[in-house]
């Protein structure tokens, strides 16, 4: 498989970034609701930790479908940029957050030389994105001021969320999409087609 990007892959990546940018923004407000419920106990930010994985899902889906170097990194950055364009109150800083989260996922795919895309790699990519984003959050949100046990609890919740909501859910959605046949001209769809032909023969 060649590593050069085709225009249609770039446009697909952009549009996935746009779609998930909107979804991300919706979850941002959903997280705010969760946070308000938990806030009286002093656990407000956990509202976000629980659903944090959803913010990595586009890197998993795009990398899984297109399977080219950079897919995870760039798609996540685009999704972040789109949130800024629609007017997320988090502002341009979000682009940097997206870049870092995407980098977390990309590192795992890079470690397999962009060849292996089975479930465990995807889950690992979700966890890795969680780790990267947590380190970034530690810096920018000042977690240094929180007690170690609290930071540890937040970290673990975020990693689990990354594994489930990004890794597992991302793979499930992509497989469902491949089932519809719209991905025929992309790497995942081709693999799907090959499997089907094998079964038929």
């Amino acid at each position, binding site marked *: 498989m060649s590593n050069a990007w085709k225009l*249609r892959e770039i*446009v697909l990546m952009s549009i*996935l970034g746009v779609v998930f940018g909107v979804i991300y923004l919706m979850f941002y407000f959903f997280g705010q609701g969760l946070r308000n419920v938990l806030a009286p106990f002093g656990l407000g930010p956990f509202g976000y930790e629980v659903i944090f994985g959803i913010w990595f899902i586009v890197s998993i889906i795009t990398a899984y479908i297109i399977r080219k170097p950079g897919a995870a990194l760039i798609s996540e950055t685009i999704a972040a940029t789109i949130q800024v364009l629609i007017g997320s109150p988090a502002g341009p800083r979000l682009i940097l957050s997206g870049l870092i989260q995407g980098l977390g996922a990309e590192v795992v795919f890079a470690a397999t030389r962009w060849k292996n895309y089975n479930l465990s790699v995807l889950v690992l990519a979700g966890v890795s994105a969680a780790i990267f984003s947590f380190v970034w959050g530690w810096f920018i949100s000042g977690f240094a001021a929180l007690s170690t046990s609290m930071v540890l609890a937040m970290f673990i919740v975020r990693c689990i969320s990354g594994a489930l909501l990004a890794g597992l859910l991302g793979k499930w959605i992509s497989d469902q999409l491949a089932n519809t046949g719209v991905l025929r001209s992309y790497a995942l769809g081709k693999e799907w087609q090959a499997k089907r032909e094998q079964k038929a023969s």
Partner: protein
Amino acid sequence: MLNSINPTMKAVTIFVPGLLLAFVFDPFTPFVYLIFTIAMTFLLSDLSLKRWLLIFTPFVFVALSFSWMTMLYSSDTFSDGRILFSFWWFEVTEGALMVALSLGLRSLCLVALSLMFVLTTDSTKFMLSLMQQAKLPPKLTFGILAGYRFLPTFKHEMEVLRQAHKIRGVGRAKGIKGRIQQFRRYAIPLLANAIRKAERVAVAMESKGFTGSTERSHYHKMTVRKRDWVFLSAFVFVFFATVFASYMFGYLNIFGRQF
């Protein structure tokens, strides 16, 4: 005036103090910078105060909730000083209160900076500027812009899907399993349609001779002028001035180290 600052430069202007603020753990510095940011927002643009407050106010509560948590669960580095009050199993010290205030004000400061950007920037111009100043590849830029233009149609498609389900007698889902089913019924067709659109756009772009080469001409030329640089340096300068002032007053605290 804020509206006509080059979008990329404006983004950088918000980036730099936003990043530097992360080092500061005293309440004074973010408070002063917050006032400065809000003042600049209204001095340099004709935003209506009402609209701004409508967006900003919810974040005051977010900041309060974050402060609350920080105060109750602050780390040993910051929970020094005498105990102010205690309830249940929590003991709130002076240091904890200060760092809680600082983090709350920091998040408000970041929101104020972001609003200054978001409310005064045209999204198409931002993308064009990213392509022309930040050297974002045209293939990506126009892909994103095309996707961005599709956003309103998604709402319409959602409506069509809903009606299609209704007419076939598929009602609202009950229970968790039903909810998951319902999520699938909406999410997968919507995404599939988006992918089809992406393919069509790509074909259309290619057939109209779009090569994605960076050696292209631009209809909307975005430029960086002197005042963009002045704008950027003013924000960075005031940040360091604030830090210096807080050092002079003896408030400055960087990652728990008092200066």
